[in-house]
């Protein structure tokens, strides 16, 4: 086939595909009269097009994972491995396959991780793993899944740990953010687990929702503490690890210094905690929902530009804590789980920090309160204007009456609008900004005219009744000043310019 011929086929194909079935047939029949071969070719492609939905939809490496994975581990389900009777497979992770098993010596259920053969083949790795497992096994904390043993059985390494039944926080997140009454208790538990581990000199290195299980009683437990990632300062080992397919960290949870290959310390966990906690609080990843956004924001972070983050945290105090966890510079973060825990406990003790705002995108309650007070005061002042103008009738019955009636009419309009806004702010706050925008120009015009009428009245009675003139001038100035200065200020505070949905993490 020539490129030219292919171009013709393409053109006809698209012309046909855009039509309804009858139009398609008609167009193809028409094409067949001039070029039957072309029409037949397009007909054939169209048939395939309609029957091959889903073809090539999955990317190649997902279609053929066996080509990427060098040695797919065989399942050990049903086998007896040393003292362990393997019951079922519960997951596959970066280090190996995880089974539910029974330790027949102690008759207890364990999570048994069959480690990839790389761990037994490479003495350096093996030694390091042993050391790390020993350190991690000393950790006992309610928020950490305890490590029981590292056994070598038939030349393969098995890591036995506490079997935690429940679902991962990743699964929980699929249903949305954590309920606000559960959020702080959950975060505090996690932080206390981190604090205990950090105090023992153990860093998790790969904290993420997949590694945290919510038990049936509501408590959370962190898995794989201290052994989640093997990383060696020794460059040779590092390269070997890389070649065997181990990722050091998970994108989206890796702190900038981790991405840059720097030291992993407690503050690396603090960063990952910040990401996880943000997700739990908002249901969304702080750096965006798609890998493209994630990469863009992480690249920004590496370049030292401030990060923008998505989602809004319901508790204001918590947002401050989490933003501190997410700082680019490790020294700007909490130094360890201990400091983090202290900050979270401070939050729990201060009820003003943990009362969820009714509408997180709305004003602070205090600013709204001032705005409401302003509306009430202005409604009272303006309601008093007709009273003042009533006395004009003593000076000139006809003109005074007209002035009184005009002021009365305008004041009634103004007071009605203000009371309506006040009412809206109390019962249907979400509509307040829209409602105000609708009536604001009327309000401004009416009150401006009111001010003008009062000043004219004052000018007319000046000399005959100075006391009345003074009162009128005062009321006029108060009305206009309120309209021009105080009203914009309280409104800006209460309604804000739309609070940006994206805050800055710096």
């Amino acid at each position: 086939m020539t490129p030219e011929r292919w171009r013709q086929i393409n053109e006809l194909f698209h012309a046909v595909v855009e039509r309804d079935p009858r139009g398609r047939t008609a167009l193809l029949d028409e094409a067949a009269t001039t070029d039957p071969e072309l029409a037949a070719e397009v007909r054939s492609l169209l048939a395939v097009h309609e029957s091959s939905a889903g073809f090539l939809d999955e990317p190649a490496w997902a279609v053929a994972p066996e080509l990427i994975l060098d040695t797919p581990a065989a399942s050990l389900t049903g086998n007896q491995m040393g003292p362990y009777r393997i019951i079922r497979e519960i997951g596959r992770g970066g280090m190996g396959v995880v089974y539910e098993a029974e330790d027949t010596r102690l008759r207890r259920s364990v999570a048994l991780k069959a480690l990839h053969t790389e761990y037994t083949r490479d003495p350096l790795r093996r030694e390091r793993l042993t050391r790390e497992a020993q350190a991690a096994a000393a950790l006992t904390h309610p928020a950490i899944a305890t490590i029981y043993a590292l056994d070598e059985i038939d030349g393969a390494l098995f890591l036995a740990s506490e079997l935690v039944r429940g679902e991962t926080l990743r699964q929980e997140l699929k249903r949305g953010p954590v309920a606000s009454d559960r959020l702080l208790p959950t975060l505090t538990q996690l932080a206390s687990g981190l604090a205990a581990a950090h105090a023992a000199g153990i860093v998790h290195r790969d904290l993420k929702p997949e590694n945290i299980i919510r038990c049936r009683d509501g408590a959370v437990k962190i898995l794989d503490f201290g052994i989640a990632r093997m990383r060696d300062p020794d460059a040779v080992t590092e390269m070997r690890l890389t070649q065997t397919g181990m990722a050091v960290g998970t994108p989206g949870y890796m702190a900038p210094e981790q991405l840059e290959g720097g030291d992993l310390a407690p503050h690396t966990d603090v960063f990952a905690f910040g990401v996880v906690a943000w997700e739990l609080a908002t249901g969304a990843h702080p750096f965006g929902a798609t890998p493209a956004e994630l990469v863009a924001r992480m690249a920004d972070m590496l370049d030292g530009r401030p990060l923008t983050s998505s989602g809004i945290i319901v508790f204001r105090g918590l947002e401050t804590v989490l933003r501190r966890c997410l700082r680019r510079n490790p020294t700007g973060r909490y130094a360890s789980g201990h400091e983090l825990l202290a900050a979270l406990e401070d939050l729990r003790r201060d009820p003003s920090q943990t009362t969820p705002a009714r509408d997180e995108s709305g004003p602070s309650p205090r600013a709204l309160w001032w705005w409401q007070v302003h509306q009430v005061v202005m409604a009272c002042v303006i309601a008093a204007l007709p009273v003042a103008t009533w006395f004009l009738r003593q000076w000139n019955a006809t003109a005074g009456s007209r002035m009184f009636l005009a002021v009365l009419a305008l004041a009634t309009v103004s007071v009605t609008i203000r009371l309506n806004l006040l009412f809206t702010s109390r019962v249907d706050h979400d509509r307040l900004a829209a409602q105000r925008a609708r009536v604001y120009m009327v309000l401004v015009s009416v009150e401006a005219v009111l001010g003008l009428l009062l000043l004219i009245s004052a000018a007319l009675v000046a000399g005959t009744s100075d006391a009345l003139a003074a009162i009128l001038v005062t009321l006029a100035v108060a009305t206009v000043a309120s309209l021009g200065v105080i009203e914009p200020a309280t409104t800006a505070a209460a309604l804000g310019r739309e609070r940006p949905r994206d805050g800055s993490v710096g």
Partner: protein
Amino acid sequence: MGEDRRLDALLPEVYEELRRLAAAYLRRERPGQTLQPTALVHEAYLRLMKDRPDRWQNRAHFCAIAAHSMRQILIERARARGTQKRGGAQPRVTLDEGLVAGVAPSVDLVALDEALERLEAIDPEQARLVELRFFGGLTIEETADAMNISPATVKRHWTVARAWLARELASAS
């Protein structure tokens, strides 16, 4: 010319990074957690960029290299496996079987690669597009970005190229 040579020099590195990441992704997967296809290329980009950002003109440039590398990795391996198991051990799943099962049909990658080469001879742009979409795992929008054409054009090309490839594969098996 010089540009091409520079790209060739980068290929092995991207190749290794992608293979390693894909393996890690696949191993890491837990039940119920779906793979994010584009995450792979993005992560490779992020990792390789942090070493020497100056080598990549932009992400589109990187995506093209990554998709091409991924094609090489998979085809080489599929070929190696095919020769190992010569004698019909490798079942060729036809499109219809895949559809009946209600899952994405598995694809004979070697046959696809050969068909893609034929497509390249008549329409290099479409072949490149398929490489980005299928081997690179890019979305329609990302492919549009990488090729500097509109998403609508990507969709049009994709539709017809996919149908053509499906037919080629069906007739080959």
